[in-house]
């Protein structure tokens, strides 16, 4: 088993942390995992992304050209990764920041209004967690429960009080995606 995930968005959208949480959860599930940020010309501002690879065996390349799993938190990310995706993969799109539909029919595109959901829960910063929840619907190797455990273990102390809201974000995203995936399949 090997699954590669790319998470991409604007600088402040919590892209890197979202990847780390998945990496923690995968690790706690006894998987091999790598997390790598894109660091480069666009260090200051601009888009940020990270790649997470989860596998049963020693992981080779920590980077992936044609990912099976992508979270695109904004339009530029959506535009960039949609064409790169593996056939049959799942692309979670933050519908709140995107004004177009899917161009590819050979992948599963899941639209989640992550911003709105986050705001409903009461914290705009949870956008990333909504999207992560949505992704989990296509990533059976990591359960919502392990991800919650991982969050609990690794959220900085000063944010621990936000755990319930994080959990809610995850589940709302998960539910939203499951519905759509059920339809697709």
């Amino acid at each position, binding site marked *: 088993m090997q699954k590669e995930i790319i998470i991409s968005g604007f600088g402040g959208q919590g892209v890197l942390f979202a990847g780390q949480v998945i990496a923690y959860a995968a*690790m706690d599930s006894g998987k091999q995992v790598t*997390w*790598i940020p894109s660091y480069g010309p666009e260090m200051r501002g601009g888009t940020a992304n990270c790649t997470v690879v989860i596998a049963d065996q020693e992981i080779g390349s920590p*980077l992936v050209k044609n990912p099976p799993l992508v979270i695109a938190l904004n339009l530029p990310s959506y535009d960039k990764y949609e064409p790169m995706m593996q056939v049959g993969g799942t692309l979670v799109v933050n519908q709140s920041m995107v004004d177009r539909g899917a161009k590819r029919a050979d992948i599963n595109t899941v639209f989640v209004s992550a911003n709105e959901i986050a705001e409903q829960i009461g914290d705009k910063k949870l956008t990333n967690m909504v999207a992560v929840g949505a992704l989990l619907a296509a990533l059976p190797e990591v359960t919502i429960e392990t991800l919650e455990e991982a969050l609990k273990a690794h959220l900085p102390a000063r944010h621990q009080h936000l755990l319930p809201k994080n959990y809610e974000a995850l589940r709302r995203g998960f539910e939203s995606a499951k519905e759509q995936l059920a339809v697709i399949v």
Partner: protein
Amino acid sequence: MPKELWKGNEAIAEAAVRAGLEAYFGYPITPQTEVLEYLSRRMPELGRAFVQAESELGAINMVYGAACTGVRVMSSSSSPGVSLMMEGISYIAGTEVPAVLVNVMRGGPGLGNIAPAQADYNQAVHGGGHGDYQAIVLAPASVQEAIDLTVLSFDLAEKYRSICMVILDGCVGQMMEPAEMPEMKPVHRENWDWNTDAKMGKRERRILSSIYLDPVEEEKMNLRLLNRWRTIEANEVRYKEYFLDDAEIVIIGFGTAGRVALSAVREARAQGIKVGLLRPITVSPFPHKVIDQLAGRVDAFLVTEMNSGQMLEDVRLAVKGRVPVEFYGRMGGVVPFPDEILNEIHRMAKVKLSADVHPRDAWLERMAHV
């Protein structure tokens, strides 16, 4: 120890601390800065020495000074900063004091960029400083290996009174992976018979210097280094093998290039192609012998690096023209994807290869599209 998710650069820093690092001297440079920043907090916490030096030149000479006293000491930097340390490294080698230097390599030459590269292989392995010396050079490909090799680097440096470098590309430095830290080793000072830590009423005075004004004495010193190097070559070669048993094509790559190749190898195996991977862990001493042996039984080699083919020449030296050696490299901070290497494997499995044309030239032709 349980596994934790560690970022490569910070893992190296903590591993050094646990290996008994008594002093760190460094200067910020991307993509290495986390090593320095981590130790700027961690070392004072433990009452150990940390100095943000005025420059890499200052840093390497602070390392040199502390190394003379016999304690465990290191610096870290990235390509341009390491170039500034060449004189100091040559002095450290010439004085035969142990020291550890980490190079988180980036795109070059010149200011280049901060993306991952492996283009300082020759500098590290074949001597960027003046004079005849050899450095032990370790090349981790994962965060766990970065930890383990950092610890090892101190042991080897001390054992052989040698400079020991850990060279990694920015990928390994910036990547997070689950890894296990070794136990904290208490700092303890060895009773060396060479270190200049002052007489303290216990012994005759000692001098540490790299001057041998009489050429015959300098030659003796050079021979001493060379003979020591033969011991190191005999005892310290390390590499990792993947699917070599029945391999007809063998890929050789270190660090990230090696692990990217692993993905390609797995894919190729899944397609029924008999390909294996040799990943040097010590790039100096270089695993000549195992390549020599492989050259006697495989059909071809593919060397893959994130540079223009620097280790390639060491492989060719070991293969001695017996079978074709092909090359695939990306440069300037570009990290290859597995499918690029898979393409090379396919190509090699298909066409008849020639050992006549230099693999770099052939690769350059293939790169014409870039």
